């Protein structure tokens, strides 16, 4: 199930940015499409699409994307609009936030996790619970 989820997150094709193995990228990578990382990325990563971090990849950056699948190493905060998956070989050292979170057995995660709830109506007053009690008639 986890493997199927990973494939759904990042499908090859389209205007995809690919950082191949043995390639080092440094700086602010901005994209409208998907990003696949097999090499080393240092800096800051932001995209409207999905990010996949390959098993041998090393990312030392904050990541912000629609979906993220981590099978390698990420040192930085990961902010995901929809789905974050950390596979059994994945390591995330940093804070994460996502709408849907999946961490496989064997994954390593060290940091804070935020999963936003649905927005509440702040103006509503709490309704006290009223317990009905039977009172015996006293003569």
């Amino acid at each position, binding site marked *: 199930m986890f493997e199927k989820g990973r494939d759904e997150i990042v499908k*090859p094709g389209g205007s*995809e940015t690919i950082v191949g193995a043995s*390639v*080092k990228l440094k*700086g602010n990578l901005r*994209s409208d499409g998907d990003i696949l990382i097999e090499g080393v990325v240092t800096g800051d990563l932001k995209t409207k699409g999905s990010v996949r971090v390959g098993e041998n990849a090393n990312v030392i950056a904050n990541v912000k994307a629609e979906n993220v699948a981590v099978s390698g190493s990420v040192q930085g905060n990961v902010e995901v609009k929809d789905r974050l998956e950390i596979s059994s070989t994945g390591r995330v050292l940093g804070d994460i936030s996502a709408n849907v979170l999946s961490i496989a057995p064997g994954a390593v995660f060290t940091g804070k996790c935020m999963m936003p709830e649905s927005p509440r109506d702040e103006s509503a007053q709490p309704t006290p619970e009223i317990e009905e009690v039977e009172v015996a008639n006293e003569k």
Partner: protein
Amino acid sequence: MYYYIVNPAAGGSKINKIQDKLKSRLRALGIMGEFVKSTGPDDVAKLTRMGIEKGYKTIVAVGGDGTINEVLNETIGNDKVVLGIIPTGTTNDLADALGIRGWYAATGILASRKVEEIDLGRVAGRYFITSVAIGFDAEFSGIKRLANGNILERAMFGTKLLSKSASFRPIKAKLKFDGNYEVEADSFSIIVSNSKFFPLPFVKTAPKDNLLDTVVITKIPGYKMLRYGYLSDASSIELPKISVFHSETIEIETKKPKEVAVDGQIVTETPVKIKMADKKLKVIVARKRKF
């Protein structure tokens, strides 16, 4: 009226074999015009200028990517002129992208006259239409024409390809994209594409997206270099060896100066700055094409 600029050296002098049939076909389609032949370096540019001065609105490059590049660098900026192509060269990447496969099909496409505006790139003071290459693709561009020659030339091509594959060393390159990020790689080949389509499912080029697509192929084994050079086949190269980036500008530096091929011709050397041009090119295309 049509103005045909013929590069007789393109594609191992392919035009010599097809010239009569070509003219006959053009006549039958009602698009016969003036034929001129280049006789040396810079001649294609000179002939293009002459055609524009004579008032021709359709200038047809009869040759490969190199010939097209020389024609477009003279026609660009003239909104009234449309480029046509009859592919007879060693590399016909642009014709392929535009859906123009072979000289015979090209004549029908010229007659139907579907015109599109496509992006251009700019490097070393020149416009380019398909790609800029550094590394194996650039060094190989000089011997590729031998592949279409006579038996002796084809034998020479095989020998040179073997020798190049055995001796080629990856190039240490630094690439800067839009001033935002830098990439370092030991590269087998770097191809900055505007409209060169790669036979790789994860590399999607679009000649109208206002972006350059940079493909970096890192070190590959000798036998894959041979296959790549002989068949122009990149499909055997696995994904981890390939990187793809999209940007409007790229600056490329190498440890030592390396040759830079622009639309298949060596034009300059590194370091080099490549960017999207602010002008577009009007070109006759096929209805079925890659974009």
